């Protein structure tokens, strides 16, 4: 693993067993995540984009060792410790839990209504035994709360007294109190109103720079990802179809799916109507995946070759990788 890479996934697959199937032969499985190769650089804000059912949440969970990894390896190396996540001992797993945290989507469901904000934020460090006295715990809680723009008064109250944006700030404080290196934010602003969303995004970015964190930001909203992430990966039906530095991806998308996804975002210009390149159909069911390229059922540029052979993510020196048979000919008009 190279020095500046924090998470390195190789051939990572997560399959869930399905009921039924014959007694002999292979059991049917859902391939939620299939053969993913991914490097997340230290200190980067890495975006993971895809529609529902594309496997982005499962991939995020697998990188946190919270989903069963069927095949492949995930390396973690933050300079202090290095693990292979597929071969963790119980002691190492505990250590990894301190270093990798998750921020959930719904701030209304993620916080216990019976605990004060102070107790909610303190719980992870108390469970992990990171502090030796209550005073020390309080100091840690106050420090992280201040970073998340929560004041002392807030800490005494219960979550019901807070608005959505404030609750999400509490969730963030809770995730960061154990001083993790790696944070997965799964649709962390999707439940918030636009005027509040910008505030939480700015806070995440600020904290990331201040604490030198590495973020995996999972979202279905491309315009949010464009603004906050420095690197983006696009998923479709469990596969990575394209990954590139943010600016490169948004100014120069190569995969037909990425292009369609970008043009489907409703533009704020009322005179821009109807210009979008529309995709037909819907994402196929993961239990019954198409052969060849998984996108061929909706791709406007499909050929026989696409239906038979699955393209692999091609490495490229500029860091822009794409899994499409035809991207080069499609780029030249």
């Amino acid at each position: 693993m190279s020095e500046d890479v924090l998470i390195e996934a190789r051939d990572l697959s997560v399959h869930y067993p399905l009921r039924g199937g014959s007694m002999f032969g292979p059991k049917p499985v859902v391939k939620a995540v299939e053969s993913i190769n991914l490097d997340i650089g230290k200190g980067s804000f890495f975006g993971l984009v895809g529609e529902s059912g594309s496997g982005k949440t499962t991939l995020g969970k697998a990188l946190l060792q919270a989903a069963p990894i069927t095949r492949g390896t995930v390396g973690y190396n933050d300079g202090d410790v290095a693990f292979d996540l597929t071969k963790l001992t119980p002691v190492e797993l505990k250590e990894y839990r301190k270093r990798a945290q998750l921020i959930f989507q719904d701030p209304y469901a993620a916080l216990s209504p019976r605990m004060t904000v102070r107790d909610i934020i303190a719980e992870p460090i108390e469970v992990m035994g990171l502090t030796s006295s209550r005073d020390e715990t309080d100091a840690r809680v106050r420090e992280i709360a201040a970073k998340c723009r929560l004041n002392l008064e807030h800490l005494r109250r219960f979550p019901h007294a807070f608005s959505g944006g404030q609750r999400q700030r509490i969730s963030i404080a809770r995730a960061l109190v154990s001083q993790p290196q790696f944070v997965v934010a799964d649709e962390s602003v999707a439940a918030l109103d636009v005027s509040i969303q910008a505030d939480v995004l700015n806070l995440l970015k600020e904290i990331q720079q201040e604490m030198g964190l590495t973020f995996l930001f999972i979202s279905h909203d491309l315009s949010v990802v464009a603004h906050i992430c420095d690197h983006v990966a696009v998923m479709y039906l469990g596969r990575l179809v394209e990954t590139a530095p943010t600016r490169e991806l948004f100014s120069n998308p190569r995969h037909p799916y990425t292009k369609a996804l970008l043009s489907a975002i409703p533009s704020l210009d009322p005179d821009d109507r109807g210009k979008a390149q529309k995709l037909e159909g819907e994402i196929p069911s993961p239990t019954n995946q198409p052969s060849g390229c998984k996108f061929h059922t909706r791709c406007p540029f499909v050929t026989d070759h696409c239906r038979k052979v699955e393209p692999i993510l091609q490495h490229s020196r500029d860091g822009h990788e794409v899994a499409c048979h035809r991207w080069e000919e499609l780029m030249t008009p």
Partner: protein
Amino acid sequence: MTRLLDVENLTLQFDTDEGRITAVDNVSFTLEAGEVMGLVGESGSGKSVTAKSIMKLNPSNAIYSDKTKVTLHLDDGPVDIMSLQTSTDLKVIRGGAISMIFQEPMASFAPAITIGDQMVEQLQIHTDMNAKRAQEVSIEMLDRVGISDAGTRFKQYAFELSGGMRQRAMIAMALSTKPKLLIADEPTTALDVTIQAQVIDLMKDLVKDFGMGIVFITHDLGVIAQTADKVAVMYLGRLVEQGAVRDVIRNPAHPYTKGLIAALPQLDDLDVPLQAIPGDIPSPLERPPGCVFNTRCSAIVGDVCSSAIPSFSKITDSHQVACHLYDEGASK
């Protein structure tokens, strides 16, 4: 154009355990036939409650003020909706002249009755079709909204359909009684972007074909820009700005509308930092006096903002704003 709907001084309060809260405060707007009006606002702004008032669908603890007047202009004369009391009276409106599409299509279909049976049932209630004819019309409608193999889908249950398909079926069902007015409450919010684009296209086509008026509720200004003819922006139960879609989105006048647009991440310029509107939406129990936006506003004129309710000022003939910045004689 012919006038379809007049909403005048809509004021609505709810009796709750914590006291009486004002959900909608003196909202007036009009809608022509064949026109799409976008109703924009964040959660708690009262946009859904406003739309439900048009069908009198709000719960029984809702108190409409005496001045509230909602008139629906039908071919055989105007209907005063507030005067309708019994469910027999309301049948003319609900599912007849007005249909509604909800955000979560899974929650809107009965799970144990097939899509087809639900469509046939409402056609039999609202029209004089027999069962056979109703079935034909339903399948035709399903086909019209782009559901392939409509005959098979007709016999299926809601859980057997994908999210986009369900929302299409919902639209088919809402339109099969040929309503004059369609209320769409966040119809694309639960959908993926590529599916959202399909549903928006479909709705635009249907407006053209059926010539009905649509009240389109959403929090997404991008969706509004792509669908609506005119926009009304709501904040904490009040209309703060309304006008033609180009005017409002290109030249927003109210500080709230401006803030909303600035907070939206734009794809064409990634260098612009995201600007949040400071603070949170106040609780409806603690509505600020004067202009409801004064607790978060960055362009306070003076004491007048927290003492007097701003009235609408004209920016252009098709664009109005309720803000003291635009009061007559005020320096801009």
